[in-house]
């Protein structure tokens, strides 16, 4: 009987293939580690850049008054000039803040008003008075928020894949004009 000694070519090929797959998996793991570190680095840099932009706005608000924020304009964009941020871009958006419950409250008060008018004295104050109070409160909160709060969104984006695509991170700040809050005259 002839003994089958050694490995066949197929066995060797399969073994090599398994080894190759293992090595590729290992090296891709290293690549992921490298790219994660790079991403962490870029995110740290982007956070610092966005914080610096916000610090500039805060500083100028202190110097020129909080109206500086209101006068910034709705949208602005540009590129960073420092060497460390070559090819990086930023956008800044300033928005008024609306009272999130305003629409719901308005809808509710409209229904209450209609109910008050059609059914007479069904509410404790009568004739849709509660609806009017709610409407007044809602209008005043909405006006106060609109006049005194601004939402500032700073987006910093940096090139990836040799400038063909951009990654980005966003920082959102809220600035409150306490002077407007203190001097607020409610709508009656």
């Amino acid at each position, binding site marked *: 009987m002839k003994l089958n000694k050694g490995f066949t070519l197929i066995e060797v090929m399969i073994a*090599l293939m398994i080894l190759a797959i293992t090595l590729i998996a*290992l*090296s891709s793991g290293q690549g992921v580690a490298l790219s994660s*570190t790079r991403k962490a*680095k870029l995110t740290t840099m982007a956070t610092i850049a966005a914080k610096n932009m916000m*610090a500039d706005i805060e500083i100028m608000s*202190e110097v020129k008054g909080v109206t500086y924020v209101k006068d910034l304009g709705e949208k602005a964009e540009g590129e960073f000039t420092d060497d460390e941020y070559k090819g990086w871009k930023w956008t800044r958006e300033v928005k008024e803040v609306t009272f999130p419950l305003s629409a719901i409250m308005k809808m509710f008060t409209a229904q209450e008003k209609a109910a008050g008018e059609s059914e007479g004295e069904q509410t404790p104050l009568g004739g849709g008075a509660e609806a009017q109070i709610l409407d007044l409160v809602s209008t005043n909160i909405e006006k106060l928020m609109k006049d005194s709060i601004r939402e500032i969104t700073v987006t910093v984006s940096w090139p990836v894949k040799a400038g063909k695509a951009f990654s980005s991170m966003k920082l959102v700040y809220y600035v409150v004009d306490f002077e407007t809050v203190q001097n607020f005259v409610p709508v009656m």
Partner: protein
Amino acid sequence: MTLIEVIIALAIFSIISVFTVSSTDIGMRIKKKVSDQSDYYQALRTILRYFDRDISLAYHAFPDTKTGQMERLQAAKTNLLLTVYTPSSYFKGTKEKLFFTSSSHQRIYKDTNETDTCKVSYYLEQDPDHPGIDNLVKRESPFIDDKIEESGAKYVIASGVQSLSFRYFSPKGVTDDGTWTDRWDSTEGEYINTFPLAVEVTIVLESLQNKDNKLKVVEKIKLLSPNNLDSTAITTATSTATSTAQPASTSIGGGSNAAAQ
């Protein structure tokens, strides 16, 4: 087994060995690089966290000009009722060093005679064990005294800091849009009794493993409450104090930055 078979087996073995060794080597190098960079950025985040907290909480107390506190204090000093002159707050910075009072102190032990206020300083110092490497050092003491540049516990915040520089933002100058300056002294001169609105910190870190690997970061930190009097009040307070009292015994006071005690 023929010679040809042995040679082929050896060739396959050597190819596999080369693959394994080189991939392990690459893996080790990548691990070192990743860990080096992680350390590097961790050091940066630590530094910025310290700066952020201490600088944004810089504490400025000024004498109450309305109640005549400053005059009383100056009179007490003149009459030697106050033997030890203790400033309550100061902010003194150059391009390389920063000394200031802050309300960032954290009490660790229960019932310690300490408050939130402390004196803090930041500067670079050569590592005693590794010549050529600079450490970023923080000094902190919960006891604010006239030894601005001394005393307090010393901590090494980070190693391998190639350079550290500061700039200070004054609301005055450049047609009053404000200006950045390399020097600030709230104890005398142009900025007496005032704290800057913001501080810009520039740090260049170098990797301890590879000195060519450098990272430069600039961060602007706004003081949460500079608590400065308006300029007319400061001028009035300063002139009143200096005209009614002898100069302070140390360089800190200059008369008008006396403690609000």
